[in-house]
């Protein structure tokens, strides 16, 4: 076995070792950014992913950002005053637990306090069995109730409002 071959083997082994490391880091990257590949490929993949599920869903949905539909859930009072959550198609959970959409930093809120979800073009608030209750304006929320724009929802010391 000549010295040259040995050197080649040596360098090749290091190269393979590093390839493994790079491949492993590639996996981490996939993990962080979703799909793999070069940025351009990723962008294309994202574009495709956006197109694919949207198109079949479009027709049944109402004309989206109409004048009367609220676009944002705004915290008007309490520890999180000024925070807002964009309203999309899925529900928003409110509570102290970390998996809530809006994590309330409020001693009077339960870990899963309430949720706000869209139904037939309206947003509905539902209490999820909280200890201290949810109030829509002055009324206690005992069953799912539609939320008009600009009417305050009180959870403990936090007050939220739908805004256009």
């Amino acid at each position, binding site marked *: 076995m000549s010295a040259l071959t040995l050197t080649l083997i040596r360098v090749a082994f*290091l190269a*393979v070792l590093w390839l*493994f490391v790079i491949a492993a880091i590639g996996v981490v990257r996939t993990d962080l950014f979703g799909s793999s590949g070069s940025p351009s490929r990723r962008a294309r993949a994202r574009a495709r992913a956006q197109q694919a599920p949207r198109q079949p869903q479009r027709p049944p949905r109402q004309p989206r950002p109409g004048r009367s539909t609220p676009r944002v859930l705004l915290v008007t009072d309490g520890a999180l005053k000024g*925070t807002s959550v964009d309203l999309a198609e*899925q529900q928003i959970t409110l509570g102290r637990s970390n998996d809530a959409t809006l994590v309330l930093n409020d001693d009077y809120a339960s870990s899963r306090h309430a949720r706000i979800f869209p139904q037939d073009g309206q947003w509905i608030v539902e209490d999820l069995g909280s200890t201290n209750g949810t109030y829509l304006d002055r009324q206690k929320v005992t069953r799912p109730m539609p939320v008009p724009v600009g009417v305050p929802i009180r959870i403990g010391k936090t007050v939220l409002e739908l805004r256009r």
Partner: protein
Amino acid sequence: MLIFAVAVVGFAYASVGFGLKGRLPSGMFTYLLAFIVIMALAHLAVRRFAPYADPLLVPVAAMLNGLGVVMTYRLQEAGRDGNPGANVNGHGLFVPMNSSATLIQIFYTAIGVACFVAVLVMFREARTLQRYTYTLGAAGLFLIALPALLPSSISGVPGTGAKIQISLGGFTLQPEEFAKLALAVSFAGYLVAKRDALALAGRRVLGIDLPRGRDLGPILVVWGLSLLLLVFESDIGTSAVFMGMFVAMLYIATSRTSWLLIGFLLFVAGAFTASKLFSHVGARFSAWLHPFTAVNIQNSAFQLVKGLEGMGSGGLLGKGLGSGQPYLTPLVQSDLVFTGFGEELGLTGLMALLLLYALIAQRGLSTALMVKDPFSKLLAGGLSFMFALQVFVIVGGVTRLIPLTGITTPFLSQGGSSLVASWVMIAVLARLSDTARRPPPQPIQEEGLTQVVSLQ
């Protein structure tokens, strides 16, 4: 990834053969086949029992483990069969290894993977571990205490004065490796139970919030006892890892920076005192600070200097597997395996190895970030920090960044206990990451549509 890992290991193996004899090593395919089967089993177990587990943990662990086996083989062959070995240059210090060392290492790998599978099967929910907080704490303490209590004919390591293992009929076991895991679980369980009390209650002394004594008491006792025992067993490296893990978990639990400061100061003070009180600790310090003095180079620093020379001769690209002289370093198969790799793979190889370790730690920490319940968070954070710290202590030790202490390099070192314990740790991390990455029961559609935006 796993196939890639196994392929790299196979390449490494072949490369050893070429380096030593200029041909493929005999018995290569048996060893390699055994390794492939073991790793395939690990892979299937993950697929079956933890389908959402982190995709990197097992391949990276397999890779490191495989390279460890290859290194064991390479060192086993040193001085055998006409290969250059222990007695060149009149250095007879390398203890020639058992001719079946590689087989034993593969056997331990099998046991490690078996334990890996067992943990995955037994604990479907990592949270069930929380029930055993106190049981595991006691078990960990007992495991640490065991070698200290046994007569040194059973527990002593020949020639080192350390009492860290149990020898029974040819098998040696280092209980501390398992104690580490048990105590990590136990700390996590305890800290979760008492987290609020630790973070909130208590007096303020010198701008630092001290927790109430009765909250901290039990855990301090456990920790103090384990440290004391480790000192009695002359095992500084492990005690450093313990201390670090403990402090890191306190920090994760309470998010008080002051803990890091206190822990670090305590450790430095403790280490300084120990170096003055115990002669063997003092010798370690002297070897670290002045390894090249005439006295030290012959005695306490001999191993360190040989390791440094080895890494130095490896240079940037290394001598190539099977072509260096790692056998000149005493204990190169276990504690100083990193220098062995440094000599044969060079700086380039070492960086790759360190990155692999960093990947495991990173995966563990990101699991800790992702997982929801606080116990799992603490456990994942504590385990990965412990893993990283152990690598730091030994790699820092052999590179003379910190005093050299004899602890194992996870996965790479020859030795069963460490390997099995490392696999168990990977199993716990895999279980935790499986819990963390499991999609929720009702899949929420595209996340990212809901964004929290601050108006101010």
